[in-house]
């Protein structure tokens, strides 16, 4: 039986509607620790104008944000803070790893710098560059919007990605609380036996 609809009514899926709302009002959490943060500010400012993509509402409380932009290197002492802020953000939430340092540690291959935040928190988009231009960050936000529109569900089923996340972070898996003392830490011992090139 054919359904007669007035011409001002559009039929869609509820998922699509939720995604459309979410992708056009991303509220970024600026986790800016280095020079990428300057480019992040430039992206939000008048010339590049992140408001064109609905993502200009930077909030400094994680409880009001749904997009974490990690801009800059993250050191050992900062990583627990990063994880805590990530946990404080409400679902649904996404993460952009901006620049070489946040994505891989960059040139800072030293004892105190975390070699890529995706080892310890889930990341949706990586932005290459040192630091990336604002256009690159905008491209990442556009790509993230596409991803949200394409994969998102109103109940957040797309975040049940345990298998995918585990594959990315093969070096450290949860073996319970670990000691920072190298001699008593199986992960460190394994790293010493098979040093990464």
């Amino acid at each position, binding site marked *: 039986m054919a359904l007669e609809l007035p011409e001002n009514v559009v039929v869609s899926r509820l998922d699509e509607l939720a995604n459309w709302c979410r992708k056009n009002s991303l509220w970024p959490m600026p986790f800016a620790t280095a020079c990428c943060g300057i480019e992040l500010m430039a992206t939000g400012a008048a010339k590049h104008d992140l408001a064109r993509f609905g993502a200009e509402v930077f909030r400094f409380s994680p409880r009001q944000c749904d997009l974490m932009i990690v801009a800059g290197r993250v050191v050992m002492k900062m990583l627990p803070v990063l994880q805590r802020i990530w*946990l404080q953000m409400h679902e649904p939430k996404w993460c952009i790893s901006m620049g070489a340092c946040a994505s891989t540690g960059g040139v800072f291959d030293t*004892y*105190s710098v975390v070699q890529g935040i995706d080892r310890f928190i889930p990341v949706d988009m990586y932005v290459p560059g040192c630091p990336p231009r604002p256009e690159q960050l905008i491209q990442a936000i556009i790509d993230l919007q596409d991803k949200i529109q394409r994969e998102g569900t109103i109940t957040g089923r797309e975040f049940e990605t*345990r298998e995918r996340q585990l594959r990315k972070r093969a070096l*450290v898996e949860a073996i319970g609380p670990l000691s*920072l003392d*190298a001699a008593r830490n199986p992960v460190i011992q394994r790293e010493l036996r098979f040093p990464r090139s």
Partner: protein
Amino acid sequence: MTTDQPATADILETLVARFPGLETSAYRGQTRIVVGEPASLEVLSFLAAAGFDLLVDVTCVDYLEYRGATQRYGLVYLLASTATARRLTVRVFVDDPEPAVRSVVGVWRSADWLEREVWDMFGIRFVGHPDLRRLVMPEQFTAHPLRKDYPLQGRGERHNFPVLTREEG
């Protein structure tokens, strides 16, 4: 500028008379004193009383496998006088195992964090420091990373954190 502060040369003469065996040298207008570890606190207290009222920095050099070095760690005390604008470098050498010197927090309060940083980075114990905790590295860290025998990329401490997954977050 007050005129009652003695010049560095006078101080050095008095110092060498009081503490025999001090090595002093000058290079390009900079004066340096090398003090043995047992007398370091006395010499530094004397210099503070003699007008060096500002402790600019306390730092350290690790001379591991350095040509001609007899002791491993060379502490550096950079002193200055705010009245006469004179500067003086004091070196104190200590050695493994368990390198230690006496703390100068009682002489200059600014030594507090400077000595904590040297303890953190080089593992030199400052005896008598009121609160000798790590300054820069995380509290659970066990190594002293600026020692020459510590690998640049660490011993894997940077990979040692819990992993947050989508389910947990």
